């Protein structure tokens, strides 16, 4: 895996950076040299600020309900609902809340929002500003799945995990891709540690810039990983297939327990809330 730690401008000044970048060149998005400018997608096509109180905008968001198959494939412990107790917009932020309660045979409830069939896009900059919850067994995620998943089941559809995080590791972010030959526990992942800070005490921006044959992972103003078909080939000894040249949709959820994070323990405090300030998508 090629690892890069390239400082980019703060998100707040990205627009300016982008203007400069556009002025300088037509962006192919394929640069891999150390001096690249990464804020290359500037045309805002989705600007979800969660400004309307109540339930999320049904024209953009759907919900996965229930426990899926085998706890959504990960032995997760929560039952997903669309009740306001688990998902609600208040004061301009989206609250996804995991609760400890008996519900439909599960010990926890929470919510999972998806944009399938409502917002799907190939390439672009996808980012969300989120304050994460904490505690053993708490597993929030901001991620994407290939829009052809109904015809082309996972892992063939592909998965991009922009943000995953274990509540018991409050300073560590995980960004991953999954595809044929590299999925589940063998996904191609990289952790980023927030030095002298943590993700549950303030908002942070989690994003990717995704173009033909590259995905850049960043948090706040730090680009911490770039993945390309060459990386997939290296990581899988040529077995893996790059499945990211097609439209994907967005998911946001707060899972409890499961194989990635382990079960909550007696010290895990409930409820736990993932607070989303905005979700934005840019394209060229």
């Amino acid at each position, binding site marked *: 895996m090629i690892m890069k730690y390239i400082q980019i401008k703060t998100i707040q000044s990205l627009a300016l950076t982008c203007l400069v970048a556009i002025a300088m060149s037509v962006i192919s998005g394929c640069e891999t040299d150390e001096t690249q400018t990464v804020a290359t997608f500037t045309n805002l096509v989705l600007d979800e600020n969660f400004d309307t109180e109540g339930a999320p905008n049904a024209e953009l968001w759907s919900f996965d309900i229930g426990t899926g198959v085998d706890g959504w494939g990960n032995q997760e412990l929560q039952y997903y609902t669309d009740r306001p107790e688990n998902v609600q917009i208040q004061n301009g932020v989206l609250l996804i809340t995991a609760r400890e309660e008996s519900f439909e045979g599960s010990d926890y409830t929470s919510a999972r929002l998806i944009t399938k069939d409502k917002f799907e896009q190939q390439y672009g900059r996808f980012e969300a500003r989120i304050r994460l919850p*904490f505690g053993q067994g708490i597993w929030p995620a901001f991620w994407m799945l290939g829009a052809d998943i109904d015809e082309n089941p996972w892992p063939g559809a592909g998965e991009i995990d922009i943000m995953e995080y274990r*509540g018991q*590791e*409050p300073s560590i972010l995980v960004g991953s891709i999954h595809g044929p030959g590299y999925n589940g526990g063998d996904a191609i992942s990289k952790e980023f540690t927030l030095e*002298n800070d*943590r993700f549950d005490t303030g908002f942070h921006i989690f994003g990717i810039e995704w173009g033909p044959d590259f995905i850049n992972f960043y948090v706040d103003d730090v680009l911490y990983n770039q993945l390309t078909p060459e990386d997939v080939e290296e990581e899988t000894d040529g077995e893996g297939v790059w499945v990211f040249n097609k439209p994907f949709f967005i998911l946001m959820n707060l899972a409890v327990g499961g194989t990635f994070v382990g079960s909550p323990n007696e*010290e895990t405090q409930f409820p736990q809330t993932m607070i989303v300030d905005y979700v934005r998508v840019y394209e060229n």
Partner: protein
Amino acid sequence: MKNYKNINIRFIVLLSLGIAIISSCERDFSDDVQFATFNNNGDIFTDAPVGLTDEFFDSFDPAGPNPANPEGFGTDDNVAFMGTSSIRIDVPAPDDPDGGFIGGIFLDRGDGRDLTGFDALTFYIKGSTTATVGEVGFGTDFEENKFAVIAQNIRLSTDWRKIVIPIPDPSKLVQERGMFFFSAGTQSTGGFGYTFWIDELRFEKLGNIAQPSPAIFSGQDISIPAVNGIEFLVTGLTQTFNLASGINQTVIAAPAYFDFTSSDNSVAIVNESGEIVVVGAGDTSITAQLANVAASGSLNISSNGVLPTAPLPAESAANVSSIFSNEFTNAVESNLEPTFGGSTTSIQLFPNNGDEVLVYTNNNFTGIVFNNTLDGTSRTTLNIDVYPLDESTAVEVQIRDVGANQVLETNIFTGLPDGDDVDRRFLINGLTPGQWTSVEIPLDGDLVAQRNNLGALILAGGPNFIFDNIYFFTE
């Protein structure tokens, strides 16, 4: 140049004060005034002590009933996590002639340090074996110990391990002399001595200590009845932070970190040390905040108000063998606070305007154990004046004769008298709240034949009541 500037500022401050006095007109504080701040260096020991007193290690009392061992402390130039040297502590065996445990403090050699810019005490530690160090912390200065913080049961590894002890509220530590505190014995090693090393000891700003969860009364919500004048202490004071490792680290925090509140100051007041005094009738809730975060746990006091004086006994002294009463000379002295294993009882000898009474709270079982047996052959009755603190107060008194061997023998499974012991049990309940009732218990049952070695009154249940004028008499 720097000195000159300082002098200059002082001069200006003095001058401006002078002007203020001379003109004696009202004015705001000068923008030029800067409060003195103290040394803000966080280092305590790197390869040598940093800014500590010449003694470096100030031991607990090596004399006294539980002597600390001052000999096991030093530095080690052969062991270090970083650099060339570490602190070496040899924990003695309990029977060591120099003292059975080791502990003490490191003090800042100056006026104290400004620790407001840090959020934790950190150090690396390793042991010669996987023992547990009883207590480590800071804020103990062998004077007020005002901002003492203690973390308990630090697990040693035989390799270096970083320990993080969060500061409950750094803003309080503007001038702290107590840089480090530890206390170690061999409880975890079955009495075998061991060695541990500490290196890179300092206060740090980690930035990843979060999710404070303070508690009083260990997070319990406790309800307790009371009368005017009874005092309680806020106990079980802790602060818990979630560390970057995901571990919830709890420390014992001194009362000075907390802000205590009584919801009704006409019922009870609480001071900054967490000392509560009941002052009036009614209900109040004692709660606390630490750095503006509400602490879990509370004490809910239901006060009956003024405790009336117990009734004056009508019996003449010649007919009385007294156990506890200001009206009579004791026939026998008693242990009023016996240590019965498993007892939850709190006992307070309360000076009710010169007529002392016994206040029992949260009683499951306790007793009044006579120092010598009492021959009650000529007595017929036991009197107890009872003031119930709850409407439902129900306390069983077990009058125990301990028999010729004069040993209190109780079957640990049944609670019944064992061996040559006998008792008479009497349930006191259904009393009118808010007043004293004189309860007279006849010495009948098994006591008819055996009451020449009366040894104890066992008190079961209640759980909240006040006793006075406890005496045997002859009808």
